[in-house]
């Protein structure tokens, strides 16, 4: 049932580039990454694309398909009509290295700025005790595969290079929330830190990050909004703060 599909793939580097047209075979069950690989193996061996697991688990093959941030390995060709032109372009928020590969080092810089897990004093390895229901809230955020689609789609930085310095982005807001909700993390300033150092205040909860998350993490509802609310509570109402603190530990 194979057919010939029309693909437009952005080719170029940091000095510029353009969409290149390819006509390429598509077979049943294939995903966009298969087609990009077929172009690479048969028509353009130097076509640059990142990928690893090909199963939506490593978050390497992020790109934009018909303008939407997607994982190439999880976008099935059956979602397009046979006559539809499929356009594949690199992530727009990060500098292009070549073709579909971008320089995502911004994210690793932000990761290094994020204060690490603080082990609880007085507990030796093997003595940690936590309830499943309490770890599940943080586990949702630890599903993150670091595909950086949320970072790419966030309008705070998507067309605003000037915000990158002070804005860590959704991926690191969920990291902050994860540590804030970690039953044994010894630091208690994760929310204030997110507000003061990570640029949480710049987010105006348009939920674009949640929409593109391939792991379906409720970034806005379960991480960003609770972090914002609690920062507000704690700033203006010491009693709510105390209540939250006790409730959280209970």
């Amino acid at each position: 049932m194979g057919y010939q599909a029309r693909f437009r793939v952005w080719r170029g580097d940091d000095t510029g580039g353009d969409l290149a047209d390819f006509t390429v075979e598509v077979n049943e069950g294939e995903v966009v990454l298969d087609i990009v690989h077929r172009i690479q193996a048969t028509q353009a061996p130097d076509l640059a694309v990142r990928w690893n697991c090909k199963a939506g688990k490593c978050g390497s093959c992020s790109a934009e398909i018909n303008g939407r941030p997607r994982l190439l390995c999880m976008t099935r060709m059956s979602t397009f009509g046979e006559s539809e032109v499929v356009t594949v372009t690199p992530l727009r928020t990060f500098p292009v290295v070549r073709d579909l590969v971008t320089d995502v080092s911004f994210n690793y810089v932000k990761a290094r700025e994020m204060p690490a897990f603080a082990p609880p004093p007085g507990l030796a390895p093997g003595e940690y005790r936590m309830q499943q229901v309490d770890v599940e809230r943080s586990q949702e955020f630890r599903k993150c595969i670091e595909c950086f689609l949320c970072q790419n789609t966030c309008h705070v930085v998507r067309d605003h290079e000037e915000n990158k310095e002070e804005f860590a982005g959704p991926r690191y807001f969920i990291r902050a929330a994860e540590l804030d909700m970690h039953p044994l993390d010894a630091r208690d300033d994760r929310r204030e830190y997110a507000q003061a150092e990570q640029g949480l205040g710049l987010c105006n909860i348009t939920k674009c990050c949640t929409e593109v998350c391939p792991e379906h993490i409720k970034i806005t509802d379960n991480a960003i909004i609770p972090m914002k609310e609690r920062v507000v509570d704690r700033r203006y109402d010491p009693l709510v703060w105390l209540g939250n603190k006790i409730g959280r530990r209970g």
Partner: protein
Amino acid sequence: MSPVERHEFDVVVIGAGGAGLRAAIAAREAGKRVAIICKSLFGKAHTVMAEGGAAAAMGNVNSADNWQVHFRDTMRGGKFLNNWRMAELHAKEAPDRVWELETYGALFDRTPDGRISQRNFGGHEYPRLAHVGDRTGLELIRTLQQKIVSLQQDDGDDENLKVFAEVTVTRLLKDGDRIAGAFGYRRQTGEFLVFDAPAVVLATGGIGKSYKVTSNSWEYTGDGHALALAAGATLLNMEFVQFHPTGMVWPPSVKGILVTESVRGDGGVLRNTEGKRFMFEYIPDVFKDKYATSEEEGDRWYDDQANNRRPPELLPRDEVARAINSEVKAGRGTPHGGVFLDVSTRLPAAEITRRLPSMYHQFKELADVDITAEPMEVGPTAHYVMGGVEVDPDTAAATVPGLFAAGEVSGGMHGSNRLGGNSLSDLLVFGRRAGLGAASYLDSLAARPVVAEADVAEATTAALAPFDRAAGENPFALQGELQQTMHDLVGIIRTAEEMEQALDRLTDLRKRAAAAGAGGGRVFNPGWHVALDLVNLLLISECIARSALERQESRGGHTRDDFPAMSAEWRQENLICALPAPGTEVQLRRQPLPAMPRELLDLFDRDELAKYMTDEEL
């Protein structure tokens, strides 16, 4: 000559999966300056694909578990070809390594009393795998990645623990007999780097890309194995390749992608197209008294392990893979060449999505299959190589001074077949030991070895050679032919005649690969990268084929149609590969397997040992 970026470190860790990151942590904590080299981006290594869990006898779910039981299971799984000392260290230290991860911030699933939960897995007598749903590998790599960041924060910068993302090492550099550093290129720029470092830890993972159907990604081209060989180190028992019994078989584009053993650990069963749970027909003699003989008993075992035996779906992977292979060959396979793996009739839908969320997601998105309502189609996929760099068990030192290896790239720990769950624990235990081994080697070193400029020049010329042959053969096509050859001729079931054919084809492919070309420039050019990786793949494929031809018995991940029995004489032999000089043929020799000491032998019944050992040994 091209400009070359220079770096000086104490330890260079090649590979940023679990073993590499754990080694880097250990070496940095011992005060050494460490470089971590990732072939991909930081945090994307194949450890991320591990699903089931990390095996460690913590005894949280069944308190009867302890290191001795884990040791026994590991030796049985490897059909007693394991290096006993590695298996012992692994079983003893795994719990500490898992608990340590919690101090780095890991969040495993919990037992009702708040400890780390443990799940059942093939070949493990008790529930033993610490896990996070079916995404344990992701948790492990992210935890280690975040620990690296934490150590960088303690230092105030990353000068003492630096990550080099998207760098591929093509050569180890030596000063006389000793390691002096490593040479590689940056994918993003095509520029070359030289690391001056007296100690190198190989943690490059496996060789999956030698095979057509594999669970491994593009990275797994046997780089560490090949670098070690070229540097004068030895490889052990390369014939043992694990075919994971359950890879996806449909649609073709996802063929080979892993379906976690947790499906079976949590109650999933294998059926042929006649609807029969065929694994009951495939319980081998050595395991006869340890597995259920009826479906009823197997089903009772999930709730009452003290009074029932485990279902045969939970036999070690080599047994299950061969059984599936036989069913398909006998015409009882699905139209897509697999068998059915069904959990939909065994657990409520909500429980399936809770325990196996990423499997649910994977089948739904990639195959339009709802695993809570219908069975999966699965078949064997090349997954893991038990063979690898010959190392000292305690220090992970290879036979070349300054060279260390840990994780999949090292050999011996798993014998002829690895148990599921023993890989994540292996890379923690021996990753740490390799980091410590490298640190103490440095402390004992009188003078720092020096990189010879002539070697750098030669490595540069070799790396650029594919560009001189822009019109040469397409490296992707050559890689495809190699994978087909290994798949067809050195696969799950092997014969002498086929392997001899494979060796002839490999010789031909080696000649053609030497003429493979790359067009385009040096910036992120996959054609160039594949042309360079091919050299490693061909060398390692030759090691696998030669060793497999030599070993005239069937054991674990090596099944000979022409020698179907396991041989007690062959159990005493390790097969060692060495490369006398670059470009020469791989040399093979036999070397006696170290004998297990009395106190470990005493952990087994004499009757059981008699199934594996010669009369003199007993």
